[in-house]
């Protein structure tokens, strides 16, 4: 047997004779006792506490549902408050004095309040907030921007079109206008500059 074989046998013998730590069994038993105690506690606990398998899935689903409802309810409440702030043709009233004083007509969307009827404080606060929001939207620049005012030339063109004068309309045609200018020029020349042969005559 050479050295290598000896070494192999030595290692295999060491593995064969490996001794477990003396207190290993005690440690294992203590740990098992703890595990068993935990297990028995779980068994004695009410059923709904021991979440396993389908039960945990069911609780998870229920929790998710509750969470969704908790998110949905405030949104619903907000939606329920919203219609009171929307425009209602029957309650809208235009204040003539204000409309006259400012170029933009100020529209009040607040419902008419009876002088004797005192609105509740939180309701009034909500209404005021809503009014200010509506005013902000009213005063905000409109989208798209209003058209620019017409230039003088555009105004003249519209005037011509509205009158329907054929001569003026014809003048809008460039070719016709050039032709007429040519003729006028020729007439002018004929009138002021008589032919040289005539003078000689």
């Amino acid at each position, binding site marked *: 047997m*050479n*050295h*290598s*074989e000896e*070494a*192999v046998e*030595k*290692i*295999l*013998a*060491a*593995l*064969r004779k*490996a*001794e*477990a*730590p003396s207190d*290993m*069994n005690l*440690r*294992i*038993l203590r*740990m*098992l*006792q703890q*595990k*068993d105690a935990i*297990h028995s506690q779980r068994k004695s606990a009410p059923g709904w506490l021991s979440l396993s398998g389908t039960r945990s899935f069911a609780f998870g689903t229920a929790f998710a549902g509750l969470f969704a409802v908790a998110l949905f309810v405030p949104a619903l409440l907000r939606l329920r408050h919203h219609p009171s702030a929307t425009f209602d043709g029957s309650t809208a009233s235009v204040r003539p004095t204000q409309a006259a004083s400012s170029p933009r007509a100020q529209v009040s969307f607040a419902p008419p309040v009876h002088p004797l009827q005192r609105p509740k404080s939180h309701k009034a606060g909500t209404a005021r907030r809503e009014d200010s929001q509506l005013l902000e939207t009213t005063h905000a620049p409109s989208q798209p921007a209003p058209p620019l005012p017409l230039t003088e030339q555009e105004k003249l063109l519209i005037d011509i079109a509205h009158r329907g004068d054929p001569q003026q309309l014809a003048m809008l045609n460039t070719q016709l206008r050039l032709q007429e200018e040519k003729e006028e020029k020729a007439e002018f020349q004929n009138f002021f500059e008589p032919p040289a042969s005539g003078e000689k005559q």
Partner: protein
Amino acid sequence: MGSIEGWSLALSPIKEDAWSEADLAVLVQAYSTLLFRVAHSILRNPAEAEDVVQDVFVRVLQHRRSLPAVRDLRVWLVRIAWNLALDRTRRVRPEQWDELFIESLAGSNLPADQAMQETQRMQSVLRELERLPKSERHALLLSAIDELGTAEIAEVMGRSESAVRALLFRARTRLKERLEKGERR
């Protein structure tokens, strides 16, 4: 061991509630050393091997309902320990414990130069052992455990007895060849 086997067979009519701490203590007492050796042969570290043994008994506790259906409790436990130890090698490389393991083997009465040679030789043996094909290595390591016969090794490995014998022969031959080649260099 016979009494333990008998006890395991007697488990079948016993209900789960009847599984007392004393039974578990008997089980730990009977098998912990064997399971420790099985785990240690793979991991080569006592602390890691002890963890594996603990895990084995935790499994026993968890699966006590199915214990009556276990045909051979001894092989069943060895197989659990074996698989848990193999699983542990994915996280813990046994090579890192080799130095400590060899230190525990080296004779203290040898001269320094001989002790060094011995250490190097053992290191190369462990290195070549790790380089062996998986099934050959497993057969060799399991065969190192005295308590396990070829039939039990075959059952743990899921092979036939003849296949285990062939694996053992090949493992030893290959290891010898490789070590001799290494010495010649």
